[in-house]
């Protein structure tokens, strides 16, 4: 089950809107597909993300995967804990494994993302 209050991308990022900010991470499905995450590279606070552009990299033991910005906006926080504990992405992808907090440039972008039901359907077909 994916959390009902989140929005999702086809590339398996999630977004949780909190006021005029969005918290961003990758889904449990993505974390499971990647396997054990051993390295996460995130943008610096203050960087401006463009929706759909790559914002970082997540690496498992075997694979390197790009992270795609689900929304546009300035990075207001990055999860520094992932530097020392990248495995949080596997163990708690929707909680302690969060990646970025972004100041939303255009809140309407969120409405264009998948809701939980649509995302579950996407992963069921995968």
């Amino acid at each position: 089950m994916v959390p009902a209050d989140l929005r999702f991308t086809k590339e398996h990022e999630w977004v949780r809107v909190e006021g005029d900010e969005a918290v961003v991470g990758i889904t449990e499905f993505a974390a499971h597909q990647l396997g054990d995450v051993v390295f996460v590279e995130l943008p610096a606070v203050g960087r401006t993300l463009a929706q759909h552009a790559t914002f970082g990299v997540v690496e498992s033991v075997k694979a390197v995967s790009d992270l795609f910005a689900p929304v546009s906006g300035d990075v207001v926080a990055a999860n520094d804990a992932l530097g020392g504990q990248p495995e949080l992405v596997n163990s708690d992808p929707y909680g302690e494994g969060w990646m970025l907090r972004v100041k939303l440039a255009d809140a309407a972008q969120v409405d264009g993302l998948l809701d939980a039901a649509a995302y579950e359907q996407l992963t069921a077909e995968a």
Partner: protein
Amino acid sequence: MTDSPAPAPQPTPLLDRHEALGAKIVDFAGWLMPIQYAGILEEHRATRSAAGLFDLSHMGELVVEGPEAGAALAAALVTDPPSLALGRAHYSMICGEDGGLLDDLIVYRLGPDRFMVVANASNARTVSDALVHRLDGFKAVLDDRSLATGLVAVQGPRSMAILRPLADIDPAAIHYYGIAEGSVAGVPAMVARTGYTGEDGFEVFVDVARVHEVWDALYAAGQPHGLVAVGLGARDTLRLEAGMPLYGNELDRATNPYEASLGRVVKLGKPGPFVGREALEQVARDGTARRLVGLVLRDRGIARHGYPVLVDGVAAGTVTSGTMSPTLGKAIAMAYVPTPQAEIGTMVAVEIRGASVPAEVVPLPFYKRPS
């Protein structure tokens, strides 16, 4: 233009066992093989701390037999198989006339006139064809036993305790890089003390029709010891920590043994000609422009296969394998660097997504088991 369709991959004879254990299955070198079960890190750590069970039925087993089998292999490979005592094995390589590597191998002496050459799955056909060609004129024949042979490895500090009660021979009496005939779980087997993990362990060669009996018995016997099934993913991280090359990454047709820092394996002192001798003698005389080394990254990032190695900011080498070492907690890699940079302690850099990450040349292996 038409593409000939790729042949359907060969399922490992243990495919149903892997599926029952929840493995992710991939097409590897034309075989359907398990890449991982619970997870690469867990499988890796279990092999280092307890034991791992590996299905290696995809490997190529080529039996060379006849009164001139040893002489034929000495002429075909870079090593000197006739110097092997009965029941012993050595690491070897097969090269082209130009000294380039066709494959790396283990050669086991099974009898006075009987040897087994174990080749990588991806090269088994190439090696088999080359050996058949090179055996011509010798009183020796090759029997490709690859599809008839199942191979299961148990590796790790508990492997002896797991195998011993199941075998009718004493595994402790088998030397490192030795092989003995006996039975395991009642199945006639050849038990070799070889592996690709850096741990003590055994490889059990059996008739493919009975390999599931051996797998099941080892799996069950291993449970109280903490044994887990290990896929190709952790096999790769284990061998990388142990500093062992992988054909296709560190080794290929355009690479000679001296570049791969494996010159010690080439027996130029053995009598008689062998394929590649002239080219390899010249390389041994002249030296090589590049060398395979171990690297540890000194800043954040993971070096991966194909990433450039930078010397003074200029691309001068290539990473062949790299990962975050589960045992050491450091990003480790093997890479080709210009020979002047191959000295231990030299600082180079790896280009990772446009950034230059410092890396130090370190001795191989990265990991050595506590003795």
